[in-house]
């Protein structure tokens, strides 16, 4: 096992990894930028190294600085966390060439999976279903119509240079294919100056379902079941859960096998995630593979009892997987909510400022992964995720209730958070019914904003009592009598002409 691991990250994931190392008796080294001097990951680690300027490219993305730091302190491995350098093949290669173990897959696999088209080809060859499509160079109408017929309907005509729905057509039948291609091309030409189009099978009612993989460096690969991550806002996952409400044992086995096959085809080792798109008829297609520990890994840990961060360290140090696929079981149901410092009434823009007070909910099966503290400045330099609140329960309905309860007791004062938004989403009847697709937020919460109903009386009373308690001036007593011996002083409140 490693002696000393440098964690090339910040925030909750750095804290998570440091704790895993500590449990295993591994020394830890934190790196930090100037604004993170007092951050929990720095406090927690045995050693810490200042990377200087908070701009990511100067600090957490600076490969030479991080490699040199690891060498200076004699770290024998680097854990990249997620984000920053986690999926950068040059970083993995730089570690390798300096004899420092990169805790993750090989640089070649990171490169392969980073190239979406090459990754798709690899999967197709391995027999893993991919979204049928045509991304070729032949752009004449006859060729495109021919390719379209092969893909089948409904299909999507997409502008290669496209975005925001421009140059995009959903085609439901062959007879309108050619005119749709022509019109998409015209629109694309006028919008982007380029009329190249792609064809892709249109996925109706799409869900984002991913499978967790653990693979050792000796050829053993297992999956740790699925995570349903369909609830996304602008392609950013906000609520994840496991098991998926649509999963059946048969589908789970099929998709799990496909995920294992995909990992093996890529020559993958360490923890990874195979992401699939699942349509309304439960057909699934490979989307991409994330070559790192995912943000939402805790829900898998909560339902399987397996510590993924520790397994990453074990695998990277050369250990063989002792877990067998047939021994793994999922128990109950877990949900994760990502708590962001963002303002739903201001277009979900990041909300920066000082965290004046932070109190996280505690209770049975409530987990809060966080890297924040009271007094911390939320800066515009990094991702505005403050923490991940995770709960698990016997079943989905109970998990949802537990999460709503936990969110209602999560005190974050000083910056605006998405907590009220998360509560609304979890309380939505379609969410409760499990009817979620990647369009869920757009369908039901497109222009959602916090209803501003002013200060409720409970808040006004709290403020008044608080100010009265903390006011320095002595309160004057009402009904103050000038004569201290007046009998009226002792009769209390009284009224005339009222029979008691």
């Amino acid at each position, binding site marked *: 096992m490693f002696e000393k691991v440098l964690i090339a990250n910040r925030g909750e994931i750095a804290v998570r990894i440091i704790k895993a190392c500590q449990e295993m008796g591994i020394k830890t080294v934190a790196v930090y930028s100037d604004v993170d001097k007092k951050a929990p990951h720095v406090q927690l680690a045995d050693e810490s190294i200042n990377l200087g300027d908070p701009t990511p490219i100067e600090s957490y993305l600076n490969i030479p600085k991080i490699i040199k730091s690891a060498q200076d302190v004699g770290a024998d491995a680097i854990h990249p966390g997620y984000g920053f350098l986690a999926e950068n093949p040059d970083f993995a290669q730089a570690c390798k060439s300096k004899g420092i173990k990169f805790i993750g897959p090989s640089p070649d696999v990171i490169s392969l999976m980073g190239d979406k088209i090459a990754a798709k080809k690899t999967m197709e060859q391995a027999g893993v279903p991919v979204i049928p499509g045509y991304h070729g160079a032949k752009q004449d109408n006859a060729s495109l119509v021919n390719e379209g017929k092969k893909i089948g309907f409904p299909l999507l005509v997409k502008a290669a240079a496209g975005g925001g729905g421009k140059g995009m057509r959903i085609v439901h039948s062959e007879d309108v294919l050619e005119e749709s291609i022509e019109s998409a091309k015209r629109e694309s030409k006028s919008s982007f100056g380029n009329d190249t189009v792609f064809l892709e099978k249109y996925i109706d009612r799409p869900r984002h379902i991913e499978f967790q993989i653990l693979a050792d460096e000796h050829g053993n690969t297992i999956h740790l079941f699925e995570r349903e991550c369909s609830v996304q806002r602008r392609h950013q996952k906000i609520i994840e859960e496991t098991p998926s409400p649509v999963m059946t044992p048969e589908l789970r086995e099929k998709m799990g096998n496909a995920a294992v096959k995909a990992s093996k085809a890529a020559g993958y080792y360490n923890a990874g995630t195979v992401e699939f798109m699942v349509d309304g008829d439960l057909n699934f297609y490979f989307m991409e593979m994330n070559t790192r520990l995912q943000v939402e890994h805790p829900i898998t840990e909560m339902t399987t009892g397996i510590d993924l961060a520790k397994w990453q360290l074990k695998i990277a140090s050369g250990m063989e997987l002792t877990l067998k696929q047939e021994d793994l079981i999922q128990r109950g149901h877990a949900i994760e909510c990502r708590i962001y410092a963002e303002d739903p009434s201001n277009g979900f823009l990041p909300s920066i400022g*000082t965290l*004046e*007070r932070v*109190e996280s909910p505690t209770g049975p099966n409530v987990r809060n992964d966080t890297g924040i503290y009271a007094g911390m400045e939320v800066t515009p330099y990094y991702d505005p995720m403050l923490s991940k609140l995770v709960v698990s329960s016997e079943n989905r309905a109970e998990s949802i209730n537990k999460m709503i309860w936990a*969110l*209602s*007791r*999560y*005190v*974050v*004062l*000083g910056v*605006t*958070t998405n*907590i*009220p938004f998360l*509560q609304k989403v979890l309380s939505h009847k379609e969410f409760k019914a499990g009817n979620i697709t990647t369009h869920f937020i757009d369908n039901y919460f497109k222009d959602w904003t916090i209803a*501003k109903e*002013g*200060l*409720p*009386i*409970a*808040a*006004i*009373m*709290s*403020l*008044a*009592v*608080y*100010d*009265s*308690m903390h*006011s320095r*001036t002595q*309160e004057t*007593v*009402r*009904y103050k009598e000038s004569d201290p011996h007046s009998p009226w002083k002792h009769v209390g409140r009284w*009224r*005339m002409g009222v029979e008691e």
Partner: protein
Amino acid sequence: MFINYECENHVYNVSVERRKNHYFITYDNAEYKVKAEETKPGHLKIKLGDRIIKSVITKGKEDKFVFVDGDVFKVKNVELTGAGKTRKKKEEGTLDSPISGKVVNVKVKKGDKVKKGDALMVIEAMKMEYIIRAPYGGKVKKVNFKEKDQIEIEQNTVELTKEEEA
């Protein structure tokens, strides 16, 4: 104590008085009698009849943050004198009675000098007491009601000459 809270560009005029174990809070023509304790720093437990309100309050550099029932409100204590004249006029409180009731106590007489926040008159209705307070410092020009008088909503209680104008 007379306090003005500003939240989302709206000003709330609140008064609070502590008497023995109770706090008497007046807001929007109603007085609430509550028991309250600070269970740990910033954590309040307020008892209003059968209802228990639990809240968390923290002071930031300029604002106060209140957490109650899972919602967060950002509030500023504002002084309504001096700067911000236009708002002051609109929000500075009224000397008109907020309710129909009986005058139970008159605290001032003609010619008295009063400070902002001083109690001028106490009106009782439906077993609740409303305190008319001086919205600004000044001199009492005329007291329109005496004790035990019946007073109707929006009737002027006391005429006050503002200090700077006096």
